């Protein structure tokens, strides 16, 4: 009886421990609310698109929510204003271009609202998010005075049916390099003045680039009013990359026909000197033979 009691205690203890471990894990693995983040982009004043990101908090960390259906609308949730329906990718991202069918609605107003509504599923209830932007654009100008190269960027916002300068907009100016953007000057960011203008000196001289052409990038990142404005322009301010092709050069590691001249000269000089000596010695042996034969003939012909 006592033994059964002990077994019961042990079983209860194990069950309790299992429950203790399982509950927090279950809680951890339960997704939290769906979080939708909308970002507006205008690329080179021509292509505007919306980037949607979905995530949720799991196990104390934000995790992307993949393959969740989203409907994105312009200005209001209505079938006629539907920009598109997408499913997020493995990173929880989805991208939508504003379609030509919404061109008249887009042109009609200086500011717009983007709305994203998720499709409810087993994990998440229907969730929505929105972002409001004012249409804006960046105009870029490059100048070279003497040897000083400068970049002037102007930001305009669409207001009262006209493009007006946008002051106090923070811009990043740089050139695109592998893996990111290299600022062209000492400042990390520049802020437009009352005329919506900013000028930066191009100090990164001698940057190597294919045919010397650099990609200049000016962008306003996650601006509260204008969203993301990106402007890229090719400029011939780099140094053309000259591919050094060592394959056809005379090196110690190249093919036998491309031995370095100095090595050939040294090796052949030494070989010629030594084998010249050996050849001379062989000639001397031949001379010895001739001398021996001559002496033999002389001795034979003596009376």
């Amino acid at each position: 009886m006592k033994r059964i009691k002990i077994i019961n205690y042990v079983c209860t203890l194990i069950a309790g421990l299992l429950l203790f471990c399982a509950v927090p894990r279950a809680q951890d693995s339960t997704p939290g609310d769906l979080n939708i983040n909308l970002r507006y982009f205008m690329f080179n004043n021509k292509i505007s698109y919306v980037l949607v990101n979905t995530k949720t908090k799991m196990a104390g960390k934000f995790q992307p929510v993949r393959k969740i259906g989203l409907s994105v609308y312009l200005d209001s949730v209505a079938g006629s204003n539907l920009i598109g329906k997408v499913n997020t990718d493995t990173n929880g991202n989805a991208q939508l271009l504003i379609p030509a069918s919404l061109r008249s609605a887009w042109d009609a107003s200086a500011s717009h609202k983007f709305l994203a509504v998720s499709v409810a599923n087993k994990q998440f209830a229907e969730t929505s998010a929105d972002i409001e932007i004012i249409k804006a654009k960046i105009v870029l100008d490059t100048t070279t005075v003497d040897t000083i190269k400068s970049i002037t960027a102007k930001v305009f916002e669409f207001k009262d049916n006209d493009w007006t300068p946008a002051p106090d907009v923070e811009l990043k100016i740089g050139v695109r390099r592998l893996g990111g953007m290299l600022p062209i000057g000492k400042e990390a960011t520049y802020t437009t003045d009352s005329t919506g203008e900013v000028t930066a000196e191009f100090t990164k001289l001698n940057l190597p680039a294919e045919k010397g052409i650099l990609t200049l990038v000016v962008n306003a990142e996650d601006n509260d009013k204008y969203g993301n404005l990106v402007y890229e322009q090719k400029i011939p301010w780099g140094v053309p990359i000259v591919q050094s092709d060592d394959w056809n050069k005379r090196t110690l590691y190249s093919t036998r026909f491309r031995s370095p001249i100095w090595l050939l000269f040294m090796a052949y000089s030494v070989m010629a000197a030594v084998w010249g000596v050996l050849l001379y010695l062989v000639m001397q042996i031949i001379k010895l033979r001739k001398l021996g034969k001559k002496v033999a003939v002389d001795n034979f012909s003596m009376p």
Partner: protein
Amino acid sequence: VDTLTTIKPEKISLSNRERIIHELYPQKFGRRGKIWTATLIVLCLIGAFAYYRQLRYGLVVTGMRDYVSWGIYISNFVFFVAISLVGSLITAVLRLADVHWSTPLTRIAEIIAVSAIFFASAIIIVDMGRPERFVHLFMYGRLQSPIMWDVIVIGTYFIISILLVYLPLLPDLKILIAHKEKNTRWLNKYYRFLGSFWRGTDQQFKIANRGITILCITIIPVAFCIHTVTSWLFATTYRPGWDSTNFGAYFISGAFLVGAGAVVVAMYVFRKAYNLEKYITAEHFNKMGKIVVLLALLYLYFNINEFLVPAFKMKKPEEEHLTELFAGKFAPLFWFAILTSMIVPIIIMLFKAGRKPKPMFIAGVLIVVGAWCKRFLIVTPTLLHPFLPMSNVPDNYRHYFPTWEEWAIAIGSLAGALLVITFFVRILPIIPIHETITEEQETIDVQPIATNGTATNNIKEKIIAE
């Protein structure tokens, strides 16, 4: 340098002359000689059979795998190359230094050099998985590769060594041809083929002497090249144990030592076998002993340089290699090689009693055996300690022990080198007869002058005047 003096051997009494010729004339093998030759031939045949197996089944019959791709074949190669340096030491350096006591040793040194360099070339072909492609080295070889330099310099050294044997041999060939009743028919033919043109005229002596002097001058830089280039095969490869700027000098000093050790052994054996006590005297051993001690100290100095400096720094990749050598699985062989090739011979030969023939012979054998082990230690342990650790490889890739085929081929090549020397001694005089007769004449001429108080340095002038 007058190597072959123009003294007419006829000046010394006929009986003395004939006695010297008789004593130094190549002799037929006795019972012991026949057993010795037969043993060497059997060892060579076993080696040839092992090589046949290697050709048939490939290098898989060896213990060499992906990591240890240079085993005892290359150790043997380095050993042969090292031992061949003796030709330039005894023949060239001592001749150019006008040292006359080494005359009876010159041909021993020269023939050791020729046979060693021949088998060095042979063993490198044995190491090739596809030996029929050896010709590709000449057809497609890259001059940038140290291996190509080695091929060129070994070929050159071989030719120089052959010439250095041949030119001083010419006056002796005349003697051999003159004693045709002592020779077999084919030997007479062979002697006539080699030296029937030698009449011993002043002009011939002059040409031959000049040729020998030129060869002695040429062989020294070429000998240094052969050993330096062989060391560069290792030193130009970035690996623990080989990445050293000391390697050229380290190899040359080691080669001088093992070559001199081999000459000491050969001196003792020929002295005993052919009763040459009158020609290879205790004084020769004494003087060779002093040279060997000097060379052993020199090699010890380079060894200290080679191991102390990296051991002091103990860079991580070197650490494993050095620890294996000093205290690991290679330690017994390492310390055996250090003791036998340097320490013990130095202790033996540092004292006059140790420079007598028998102790010298023992020291010489120790040097040669230790030197072979040292070459193995230079080649193999490094290959077992690559920079990138070995992973996911069969267990036998991590170790190296030669198979019986490798042992048979290596021993066969050593036996082959000894067989070449043995046949040479059977066919040609191992101590130059003409030079010995000439030196006998010098002694006769010098004695009255010396007793009159005239400096012995006048010997040369007197000989030339005559």
